[in-house]
């Protein structure tokens, strides 16, 4: 983390800025999901997504998943996370845990994860169905 509170850059030259209201210690806000991961762990999740170009054109941002969904990222057992593309190219990314029922991933991205063995057949189906 640098003096501005930014993590990075990734090999894509992108930075990550954890947002207070999504952090694990944040006050409960019914509209905001919260991480169970520490800030540096959040960055690692962002980094793997950014460097592998897990971009979803449907949602205009990056999705991430670790270890075939085994790693729980959010306090409501979310196993996926989303990093919306910043409005300005030079701005840092922020992100938060999501589930595929609320945040529908593009079929192309879920298929890419299957082809690259990021996920198995089971997770492929679960994510396409919006169950995970």
């Amino acid at each position, binding site marked *: 983390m640098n003096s501005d509170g930014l993590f990075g850059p990734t090999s894509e030259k992108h930075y990550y800025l954890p947002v207070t209201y999504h952090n694990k210690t944040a006050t409960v806000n019914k509209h905001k999901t919260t991480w169970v991961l520490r800030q540096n762990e959040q960055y690692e999740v962002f980094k793997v997504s950014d460097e592998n170009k897990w971009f979803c054109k449907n949602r205009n941002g990056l999705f991430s998943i670790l270890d075939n969904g085994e790693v729980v990222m959010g306090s409501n057992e979310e196993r996926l996370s989303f990093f919306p593309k910043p409005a300005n190219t030079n701005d840092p990314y922020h992100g938060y845990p999501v589930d595929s029922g*609320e945040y529908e991933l593009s079929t192309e991205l879920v298929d890419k994860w299957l082809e690259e063995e990021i996920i198995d*057949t089971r997770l492929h*189906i679960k994510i396409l169905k919006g169950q995970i």
Partner: protein
Amino acid sequence: MKTIKFSIKVKAIDSYIYGGHLFLILQDGRIVFTEISKVIRKLVIEYPLFENLIRLSFQRNDYLSNRQGLMILGVGELKNVLMKLWDRATNEIEFSIDFDLDDFEVIDNIPSMPVLDMRMYAMRMYLGCKEGLYEINLNPQDNYHIKPSKPELCFGGKVTHLNAKSGEVVISANSEGLFHGSFLNNKNKLKVIEKPVAKKSIRTGWSSYDVINYEEHNSFEYFVNETTNIDSKPKYSKFDEQPERRRITEFGKEKFGMAQLMENSNLKIEDIAYCFNSSTSGFFFTKDGQFININLNKENKQDLYFTSRNRQLPNLDNTKKHFTRPVSSSIVPKGCVIEYFEKVVLYHNGKAKIIETSPSINVRTYPSSIRYKNLITITKEQEISIHSIYPFDETPIKLTFDDFDFENIFDE
């Protein structure tokens, strides 16, 4: 009492029991089926000592809980003997057979993989896939011999969940919306109405003839459907043991929002992590780990609401230390089956019982079927397992919060 279970070693992504047959979607994309009696015969050859229990459990489970069965088992110690045999079968034996493609008939290759959901209804198979909904007529010649037609595309777009009843097929297509259609037309094929009735749908649940649409796992909308009585046995239902008596004539004639339905309940909407419904009640997993059942007042359709009385159901853990958010949910008589990320749990007669300890692709129940209402089919990457639920009442345990400290209330 645990479930009696048998497994078939097969690489499949979905399995479904319908009309005396077992249908499978194999991982290579083939749709296959066989008679249940053929599967049971193989099982009986392997385990001859348990022949009658196997047949009673998996083929005619209804014999145990229909009026005749209850009368017979009400005599003397017959029920106790059955309980002992059931207990022995669940504790001592792992019923298992190997898959043999020669025992199955191949319908076709599914044009779009993977299949995300399937529904068998009115001698038809509906397959919701990544790239559309396919219809297979199982009985185009209108006799009881199954001779399936080729899959025909009847709806474009990703289908995440399917439901069917009273002449209507209900299609969840996530952010494309909620659709419905009927095959009761001159072509005898499903015609889906193009305009969605809701903007988002990941799944639906029946509430008698009405539909609850889940936009997300913790939010829903109630669709009141107009129905009419059917005087004569409908043609599509002629092979059913209990033919359908009502037909839906207007889908979503009236709608009730979640806030309106929850207004009288003692549960805050923002506390709900996951919810689903049976015909008469709602089931709610809260963010702090509680599992709650609330009756849905439907006496007057102008005034639908969840009542103020919460019934606490047993849960696996009421702390946030262990994550227990459902992946899917299914209804069974006097309970439900919850699929978690790494296990499957049967909540039945006031007890929570872990029935599978490894991840599943799919879990199915058959609550409206006469013969299969106490069966659960679970599809995993290497096998499918079929569970038979002990159909009798077990004395429910009176649960208190203190009970959650003692693991012995849960039958693993």
